[in-house]
């Protein structure tokens, strides 16, 4: 006799097909897929398949680093790319594994649910003939007739929260721990809920990122985002029309502790915004912090990054302003060594466009190690730039705003023409370009906030399911399924009764004996 309600019970294996026709093959395949061994294999496979995504850069997380990696590994890069190692979690083979696992799960759990449903409503099975054969077993003799004793046996079992049933006049069958299987089934079913929630979020959710320098305003329309990733079913025209203006950005860095790895570490970032729920609504003062997002009513605004946007002005030879913007530079490390580019799209002399690329250094030093920043706060800001002329957007290809595509540009030389031109500017300084190309001015520096706005309508389903799964898991792992059988028979002496009690549990149930003792103790208490 087995306590198990698993579909791989031997009973099920008895269904043999006389000839394996197509149907037979299908049935065979289905049984294989929904077997415990396959589930185990798929689980281990899933663990292995998830691995490369933590080793190789992933396009969905950091496209730049991924492209960089592929470029640096000329032979391996494209091959690995082809088999999806840079998009592991969107790769077909990864999906195949978890979808198979899901099918296996459903195919395994639904029949189990049915069996368990029946088991919960049926009575504990008949007692085996020879109770002394069971792993835990005991016989005790009590005063009283078999009927009297049996009545107390029932009470003692009920006291142990067993469900009881008598199939005949001299035995009681008792069972408890149905919640174990219930919990287990809820756990497995809830995993499906988690996946559904994720899928829903993927289809109906969206996320957009925007870099917002202090003083500028963001309006929540698809076009205003620097990058926008809407799910396949998202109507990007229907975004709620809120706006927010970044009025102030606070950044605090560690200055007290000088130890390794701590000095200069970020300590607090706060973005102060003027939030307007919809055009015409009143302006609300809000803050967005790391760990403290702002609910906008259409997506949640998170503060995910920050950096510096030096304000740069470029004038042509006539003194006409051709470029004047707060230009975000992207921080590369903890000291905010930041890279960026200035693209003066208007035509320069002789139809040539001007471009500048280089570094922004919040606390700049210039020594034999080259220009670099030694602290993340803007204590001694400086710009270190090179200048180029030519075509800024060769072939109209999309390119990063933080770098120049210099394929069709030439780098300018210094006034003497002996060396490449290097421009070093501190706030307020202007540099006049050689050859009547005009001038470039570093007006001052602002901070920018990297804001990400995200909407995920599936998250509640995922969270709810995950919590149900956790609860089910706890039930499944802590509760024990146990059966006890009791038989009474008249003893040799007059007026005495032998109580035989045997317990059935899964092989490594250390507590079974205790259960049995518990029932006997309660029985003894009643008989004295």
């Amino acid at each position, binding site marked *: 006799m087995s306590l198990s309600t698993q579909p791989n019970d031997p009973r099920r294996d008895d269904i043999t097909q006389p000839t394996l026709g197509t149907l037979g093959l299908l049935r065979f395949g289905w049984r294989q897929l929904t077997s*415990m061994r396959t589930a185990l294999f798929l689980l281990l496979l899933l*663990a292995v398949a998830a691995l490369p995504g*933590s080793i190789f850069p992933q396009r969905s997380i950091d496209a730049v680093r991924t492209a960089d990696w592929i470029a640096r590994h000329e032979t391996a890069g494209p091959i690995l790319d082809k088999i999806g190692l840079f998009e592991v*979690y969107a790769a077909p083979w990864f999906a195949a594994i978890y979808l198979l696992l899901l099918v296996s799960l459903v195919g395994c759990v639904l029949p189990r649910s049915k069996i368990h449903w029946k088991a919960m409503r049926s009575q504990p099975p008949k007692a085996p003939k020879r109770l002394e054969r069971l792993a835990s077993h005991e016989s005790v003799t009590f005063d009283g007739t078999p009927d009297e004793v049996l009545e107390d046996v029932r009470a003692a079992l009920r006291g142990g929260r067993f469900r009881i049933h008598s199939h005949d006049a001299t035995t009681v069958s008792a069972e408890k721990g149905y919640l174990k299987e219930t919990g287990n089934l809820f756990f497995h079913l809830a995993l499906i809920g988690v996946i559904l929630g994720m899928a829903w979020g993927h289809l109906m959710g969206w996320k957009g990122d925007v870099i917002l320098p202090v003083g500028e305003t963001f309006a929540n329309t698809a076009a205003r985002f620097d990058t926008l990733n809407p799910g396949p079913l998202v109507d990007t025209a229907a975004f709620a029309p809120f706006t927010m203006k970044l009025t102030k950005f606070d950044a605090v860095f560690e200055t007290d502790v000088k*130890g390794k790895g701590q000095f200069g570490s*970020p300590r607090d970032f706060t973005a102060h915004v003027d939030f307007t729920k919809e055009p015409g609504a009143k302006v609300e003062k809000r803050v967005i912090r790391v760990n403290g997002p702002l609910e906008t009513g259409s997506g949640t605004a998170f503060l995910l990054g920050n950096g510096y946007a030096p304000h740069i002005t470029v004038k042509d030879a006539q003194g006409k302003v051709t470029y004047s913007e707060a230009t975000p530079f992207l921080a590369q490390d903890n000291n905010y060594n930041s890279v960026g580019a200035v693209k003066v799209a208007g035509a320069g002399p002789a139809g040539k466009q001007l471009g500048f690329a280089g570094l922004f250094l919040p606390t700049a030093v210039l020594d034999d190690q080259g220009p670099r920043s030694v602290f993340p706060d803007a204590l001694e800001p400086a710009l270190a730039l090179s200048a180029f002329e030519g075509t800024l957007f060769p072939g109209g290809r999309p390119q990063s705003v933080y770098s120049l595509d210099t394929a069709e540009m030439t780098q300018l030389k210094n006034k003497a023409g002996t060396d490449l031109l290097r421009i070093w500017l501190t706030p307020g300084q202007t540099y006049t370009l050689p050859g009547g190309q005009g001038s470039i001015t570093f007006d001052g520096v602002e901070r920018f906030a990297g804001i990400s706005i995200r909407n*995920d309508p599936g998250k509640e389903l995922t969270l709810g399911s995950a919590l149900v799964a*956790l609860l089910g898991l706890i039930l499944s792992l802590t509760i024990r399924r146990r059966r006890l059988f009791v038989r009474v028979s008249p003893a040799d002496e007059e007026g005495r009764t032998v109580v035989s009690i045997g317990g059935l549990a899964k092989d490594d149930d250390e507590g079974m004996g205790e259960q049995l003792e518990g029932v006997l103790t309660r029985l003894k208490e009643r008989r004295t």
Partner: protein
Amino acid sequence: MTHETMANYANLSLYSAMAVLTLSMLGYAAYLAGWLPTRDAAATSVGAEVAAEDRELVSAGVGSMSGGVAPEAGVSTSTTSEVPLRARKAGGIAQTLALLGTVLLFASAALRGWSVERWPLGNMFEFGVAASLFTMMVFVIAGTRRDLRWLGVFVVAPVLILLGLANTVWYTEAAELMPSLKSVWLIIHVTVATISVGLFAVGATVALLYLAKDRFGETTGGFRVLRALPDSRALERFAYSLHIIAFPLWTFTLIAGAIWARQAWGSYWNWDPKEVWTFIIWVVYAAYLHARVTRGWRRQSASWVAVAGFACIIINYAVVNVYFVGQHSYSGL
């Protein structure tokens, strides 16, 4: 008291804990060694501290005179009351020192937290100390319910190695946290994660001892220490019971981490390397629980899956935290 003095006291407490635990480990080793002579009735003359070479000599002796003696040795294995007085003394001292070491570790973590006015789980060094603390707590608490003196040396020694690493390679000065770590979810998520790591650590140790005992326990060769352990079925069951406490806690860690990820980074799952590994660990342990009840899988193979799970935990902490680029860059290195 200034923050710096507090941090210094924290370190002092840590060094004391390491010293005390070293003594405790020696006590447990003496306990195991002291066991052996009674188990091998033939070797009564051997003292508590059996040197490695001696041990080989002794076991060779046992082998040559097997016959009549071995069955008696078998009988004595079943009763713990046979533990000789010296071993019992060593074991008792080791137990007390293990408790003291745990208290000192706790004090160290508490003082560190006090000195920085935050939960002391913000960098690799603090993880190391906390993981040691919880591993010791699991061992001490489990030890109140059953006799675990045989396990002591196998838990305390790795804990000492971990503390050594934390103190040298991973040491980070006491300081505040970076913004993404300032959250109650740090306390919830990381603390529960570290508690389950403690449980998994003891679980993996017991699983390995089970595998060793199962494989070499019956040989008369150089692995006689294994005979001082409980029988292999009991070991396997004990390992399982630790894992089924740890697994729901790890599941909770995963969920709490996702909630926090949404607070801090905007989306509850980003396939960040650290998340990937947390997930891999979860899946491997789920596979362990499955393997244990899958027909055609032996308990030994299932136990290897559990050991693999712990290997993943080690990788997650020692490699992923330090070398993999991701949003979880808080190792403080």
